[in-house]
Each structure stands twice: as structure tokens, then as C-alpha cells.
């Protein structure tokens, strides 16, 4: 346990070593946030409510989603770390180390996520809340559930990225699967438009998939519109995806390792 805690700290420090990158990322996220906020304000000039989201919910969505963008790594440099090591063969060294590759990568990713949460998500959200009128829940309980949901979103996002990286064992080049995953990630997580905007049952279908568990789920809890009408359902779904993806990643790693050994490493 101590070991994984230390690995998480290293993951954190790896990002805190580049403050200029953080400021640049913050700038870009805020710029996108402003654009999206003005677009949604224009949308809500025509209507009062879409799929349970009023204008203040929608603007809250903008600033939470832009903040979580880096925390759950909708896209970012952390996408390729392992894939590049698989391609170069360095992963053989990783597998010889006396620690679990999946757990140690997860620990480092959690450290990365904490850094992004403190230095990107929270400042961005506070700024958005100051500039725009957004929904601010007044029950402490909802804030707590929101925090739990964010904590669960991190292993879900890790699970998706880990499997994506492992595709390199078979394809060597990671660019194809990356693009495919990027497309799914962007639209099905709720990053581009809130899933509540989707017509009819597409909305519910999208919220059941793992992508929604890493971004839309915490936001839905925050604005009081969780799937199934209660936060417990949304959180259970998140736990389910985190566990399922972890187990699938484990099986994929075992199969990939076997293949690596056959090729002679």
C-alpha cells in the first residue's frame, strides 16, 4: 500500500514539475469554456429547459466538464505512456519489476488526477462560478456525493485508457485505436454537449455506457439530475464500470504479456 501511495506521489510530481504547462492548459480550457458558455447562453435564449437542465445547470456543466477534462484525461499526453513503452519494448522491463503493472500505472494516474484536480479543475470552476451565474447546490450531502462521483470517475477513465494502451501489444501503432477512442470519449462522455441534450432514449443509452461514468455522472449528480433519479444508482453504475474495466484490463494484460513472451520480448 505504502508503495502505491509513493507511486501516486511520483505521478503527482511528474505533472507539478511543469507549471508552465499547467498554466497553458488552464488558459486553453478556460477559453473553450467561455466559447461553450456563450454558445449555451444563445441556446437558452430560445428555450428554458432541455432534458432537465436549465440555463444555470448548463453553465455549471460547462465549467465542471472543462475542469474534469484534464482530471479524467478525456485526452492528453497520459494517453500514450504505456503504448509507447509497448512499441519500444521497454514494457518488458516494466513486467520484470516486482510490482503489478496495472496497479502501479493506476497509482501514478491517480496522482496525476489529483494534481489536475487541484491546479486545473478547481481554479477553473471557481472562475466560471464568479463570471457566470451557475447552479450552486445548497445541501452538503450533494457536494459529498459529487466528490465521491469524481473520485470514481478517475478509475473508470483509467480503465478505458489502460485497455487502449494495451492495444499496442497487437497493433504496435497506437494512433488508430487512439482516434477511435477519442471520438467515443468526446461525444459519449458528455464533453461536447450535455448528454441531456440527446433526443429520446439516446440520452439514457449514452448515460449507461462507461464513458458517461467518467464525466456526465458527476455533473448530473451536481445539478440534481442523476440517472434513475437518484445518486445511488449513478454511483453504483460508476463502481460497476470501474471494476468491470479493471478486470477486463487485467485479462487483456495477461494475454498481451503471453504474446510478448512468445515473441521473445
Amino acid at each position, binding site marked *: 500500500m505504502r508503495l502505491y501511495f509513493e507511486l501516486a506521489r511520483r505521478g503527482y510530481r511528474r505533472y507539478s514539475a511543469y507549471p508552465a*504547462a499547467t498554466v*497553458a492548459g488552464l*488558459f486553453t480550457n478556460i477559453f473553450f469554456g467561455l466559447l461553450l458558455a*456563450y*454558445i449555451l447562453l444563445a441556446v437558452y435564449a*430560445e428555450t428554458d429547459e432541455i432534458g432537465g437542465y436549465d440555463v444555470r445547470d448548463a453553465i455549471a456543466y460547462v465549467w465542471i466538464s472543462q475542469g474534469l477534462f484534464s482530471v479524467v484525461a478525456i485526452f492528453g499526453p497520459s494517453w500514450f505512456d504505456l503504448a509507447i513503452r509497448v512499441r519500444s519494448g521497454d514494457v518488458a522491463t516494466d513486467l520484470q519489476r516486482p510490482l503489478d503493472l496495472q496497479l502501479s500505472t493506476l497509482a501514478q494516474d491517480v496522482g496525476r488526477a489529483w494534481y489536475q484536480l487541484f491546479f486545473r479543475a478547481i481554479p477553473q470552476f471557481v472562475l466560471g462560478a464568479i463570471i457566470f451565474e451557475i447552479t450552486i447546490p445548497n445541501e452538503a450531502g450533494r457536494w459529498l456525493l459529487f466528490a465521491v462521483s469524481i473520485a470514481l470517475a478517475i478509475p473508470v477513465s483509467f480503465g478505458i485508457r489502460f485497455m487502449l494502451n494495451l492495444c499496442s501489444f497487437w497493433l504496435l501503432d497506437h494512433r488508430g485505436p487512439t*482516434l477511435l477512442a477519442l471520438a467515443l470519449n468526446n*461525444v459519449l462522455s458528455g464533453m461536447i454537449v450535455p448528454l441531456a441534450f*440527446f433526443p429520446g432514449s439516446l440520452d439514457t443509452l449514452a448515460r449507461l455506457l462507461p464513458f458517461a461514468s467518467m464525466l456526465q455522472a458527476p455533473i448530473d449528480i451536481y445539478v440534481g439530475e442523476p440517472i434513475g433519479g437518484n445518486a445511488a444508482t449513478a454511483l453504483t453504475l460508476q463502481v460497476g464500470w470501474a471494476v468491470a474495466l479493471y478486470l477486463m484490463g487485467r485479462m487483456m494484460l495477461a494475454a498481451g504479456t503471453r504474446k510478448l513472451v512468445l515473441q521473445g520480448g
Partner: protein
Amino acid sequence: MADLRALAAVYVRLVASRIRAHLEYPVSFSLQLVGTALLTLIDFVAIAVIFVNVPELGEWTVGEVALLYALATISFALTDLAIGHLDLFPQMIRDGTFDQILVRPLPSLLQVVTMDFAPRRIGKVIQGVVVLVLALVLLDVDWTVARALAIPLAIAAGAIIYASVWVALATIAFWIVDAIEVVNAFTYGGSFLSQYPIGIFARWLQGLVVFVVPLAFVAYFPALYVLGKDDALGLPQALSFASPLVAVLAALVAGAVWRNAVRHYRSAGG
């Protein structure tokens, strides 16, 4: 002129070799094509989903916004195809491999943009053309020769404007190598912004894209002209025709910025 022709030949040869390199991994390349098609399709989903819920956006109909989207997307896709690999350039500064570029007898910018070439990006150009056709079907444009000419002219000018903004901002890497994500705000962010009517944005943002980073000339002003719409910003009508001129100016500024930045380059090796 002979010089330019020689450079063009070098460019074609370098790009062809990059394309061959991509075809070395056929499964990954096919997935990339599917991914690009999906990604660009999804891009338009955002607009489609908005118009499922509301009839108009800032007094623009779905057909009109589709025209903005098509102009912005085709221009940006062409820029991305030609110089999208400027994204990799900060890594060259970090590693010090930019040194190699300076000792070769070719313009540094030409070498940087031909480091890689992603043929899959053609998919994005095609998707933009599809949306353009869709927009023209949805719209009832009062066609004149000038209006018909305005569309290809806007696309060419738009591509040059995007490229200029990209090159000029990428030079930030010569000074602060980690800060390169700032460029994304104006390139990817700029292409996103140009897909929407400028009138819905805050006043300061409108000023920024008209007078500082001239993104309003990519799609907004040309679309106003083609559609015969009034400018919500209340600017002179003549700006509707200014895109080609703005593009030439932007390219000259970007070229000057790049040359100046290269002169200030200090290798990672000290």
C-alpha cells in the same frame, strides 16, 4: 521562380515518403480512417443536437450555421492537412533536434511541417464538403457569380489565416517549450469558434476575432455576404470582402514572426 518550383518538388517528395510510412501499419491506418470519419461526424453532432432542441441560434437557422461550419471546417482541415504537424515541433526544441533542421539547406518551416503527414486528415476535408452541400440544399441562396466565387475564395483565405495564426503562435515554443497548449486555444479553439455566428459571443471576444486574431474572416464575414445577412456587430459592409486581403497580411506577419523566432533559438544543448 525556379527556387519555388524546386521547393515544391522537395515538399511533394517528403510528403509522399510520410504517406508511405503511414501505410506500413494497415490495421492501425484503417482504424485511423474510421476514427477520423467518426470524429469529424461527431463534431457536427454538437450542432445537430443543439438544433434538435431549438429552432435558431442567435437568429441563425440550422442551414446558415451549417454554412459557417462547412467554411470553417474545410479551411481548418486543409490547414491541418498541410501543417498539422507543427504540434510535434515543441518536442524538437525540447530534444534539441531542431539543430539538425538549421544545418540543412532548406527553409526551416518547410522542414518542420513535412516531419510527418497524415493522409487520414483528408477525411475531414471530405466531411466539410458534405456539410457544405447539405447547407446549400437547406438554404435558399440568391445566387450571383460573385456569391458563388466567394465560397472557394473564403476557403482558401480561411486556410491561410488558420495557418498563419498557427505558425505565429507555435513560435511560443522557442521561448516557453511547455506552454504550447496555449496554441490549441486559437487553432482548435479557433476552428470551433468559427463554426458559430460571432454575434452570440461576448463583445471582447468579437473584438479579438475581428481585430487581433482575424478568425472572423474565415467563415463569418464571407457567410454574411453569401447569405445577404446583416452583421450583428454593426461593422462596415466592406469587411465581407476583406478575407483574401486579411489572409495575405496574416501570412506576411506569421512569416516575419517565424524568422524572428528562429533567430532567437538557443539549442537545448546550450
